[in-house]
């Protein structure tokens, strides 16, 4: 304790910054901040529990209560408020049978209100599991709840405007990787060779940008980092970059028409990068 008092203020601030990212990790893992974990953080960082508790209660993104599987935030900022945000909130409270700030008994939904999401022109805004719904009215509430319950990460290939097909070639030999005989998502697939855990086989990726559908000779277990090879020149497709989501190596491939797409080599990770200007190693 005595040493803490003599440390310069800047170091104190630095230590506090560290706490935020530690708490974020805990929040990501448990969905909330359990008391036991906070005490652990205090012990390991040498900070006092009061400081950590202060940080945890200061930021709205941290919760000390267990949260539901799905997080629904209703915007009640000025613009959303005048456009009918309170009615939307009321409808959510009624449909989920909870008050704002609470979690349903089955631990499925947590309802929150936020002050502004920065999309005032599209208000009232509702964010469910990171997906934005604009111009929400009370009748749409049920629909949002149902969609969220089903899982918003499911992509609708046929209707989603954000999805378009790309043509891919090897970053080394520039040979096309497109396989018109094997269709994934009703489009020619991208054929590569993969190896993992001493298994060696083919993998076909959907050529739709935004679709994560694949077909593989072997079942790839979740979280396996896979090595990608060009089926033509047999060099490993490996770039210098690492995935920003999980840190695994990224796999670079050339997009026809110019540009590079990089996908994460870890199964289940959706990290990807589309760069239509630079080179692979630039």
């Amino acid at each position, binding site marked *: 304790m005595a040493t803490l008092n003599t440390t310069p203020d800047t170091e104190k601030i630095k230590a506090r910054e560290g706490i935020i990212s530690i708490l974020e990790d805990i929040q990501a893992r448990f969905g909330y901040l359990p*008391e036991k974990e906070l005490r652990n953080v205090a012990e390991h960082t040498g900070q*006092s529990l009061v*400081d950590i508790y202060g940080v945890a*209660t200061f930021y709205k993104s941290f919760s000390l209560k267990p949260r539901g599987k799905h997080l629904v935030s209703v915007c009640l900022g000025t613009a959303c408020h005048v456009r009918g945000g309170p009615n939307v909130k009321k409808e959510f409270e009624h449909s989920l049978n909870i008050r704002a700030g609470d979690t349903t008994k089955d631990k499925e939904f947590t309802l929150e209100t936020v002050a502004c999401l920065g999309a005032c022109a599209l208000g009232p805004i509702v964010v469910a599991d990171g997906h934005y719904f604009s111009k929400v009215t009370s009748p749409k509430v049920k629909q949002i709840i149902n969609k969220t319950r089903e899982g918003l990460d499911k992509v609708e290939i046929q209707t989603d405007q954000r999805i378009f097909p790309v043509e891919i070639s090897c970053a080394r030999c520039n040979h096309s990787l497109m396989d018109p005989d094997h269709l994934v998502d009703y489009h020619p697939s991208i054929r590569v060779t993969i190896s993992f855990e001493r298994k060696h086989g083919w993998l076909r990726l959907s050529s739709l940008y935004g679709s994560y559908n694949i077909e593989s000779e072997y079942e790839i277990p979740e979280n396996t980092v896979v090595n990608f090879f060009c089926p033509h020149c047999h060099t490993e497709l490996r770039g210098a970059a690492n995935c920003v989501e999980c840190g695994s190596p990224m796999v670079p491939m050339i997009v026809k028409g110019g540009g590079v797409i990089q996908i994460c080599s870890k199964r289940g990770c959706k990290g990807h990068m589309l760069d239509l200007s630079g080179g692979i190693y630039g």
Partner: protein
Amino acid sequence: MVNLKLNGLIISVEEGTTILEAARFMGFPIPTLCHMEGLSPYGACRLCVVEVGEGTKAKLVTSCTSVVQEGMTVRTASARVVKARKMIVELLLATCPQSKVIQDIASELGVRQQRFRQEYEDCIMCGLCVRMCEEQMMAKAIGFRGRGDHRSIGTPFDMKSEVCRLCGGCIYVCPACQLRCTYTEPEKAICGGCMNLTPPCLEKEKFEDMMCYMEPCVACEIKNR
């Protein structure tokens, strides 16, 4: 040494002195609430505002947190400063009217009434107790929690803190919790501060390294006799 002009008086003080210290040294009174010698300056109560600079560029700054600078002009009791201070006292009175400390400052400044909606909070968030606990008692048992409207001072999880030695330092420095120190019946208005500290004193055996800030009270010693 730093030269500055304080209320028209040209003075030189050591580098690193705050305006508050310089003004008090020269005998100019500045009211303070969240300031206490031995604790780090905090600038929460804003009562110690002074005017720095000249003409249209003059700014109101808290003197307890501002360090003197070469050639600066400071006025500790200009019309603007007094007006601002009176407003701050009114706001403090609106929050916490029962505090003897705030009442005293109000009467000193000639504030006879406040014009805001009356509330009866028991805390003005001056942070004296938090700094006392951390800097003098080396405990860090209490701290600020929450934000905005919900900001409060207390222990983590509202549980009895393991690092608290029940020294009473936080109560000793608190300018707002005077009401708590009026024995058990407020209308009797005896101080009875020591009576309020009975629970800590009773548990004293559990805390061998306890430091007591109510030292002249010796209530615990009388009781144990």
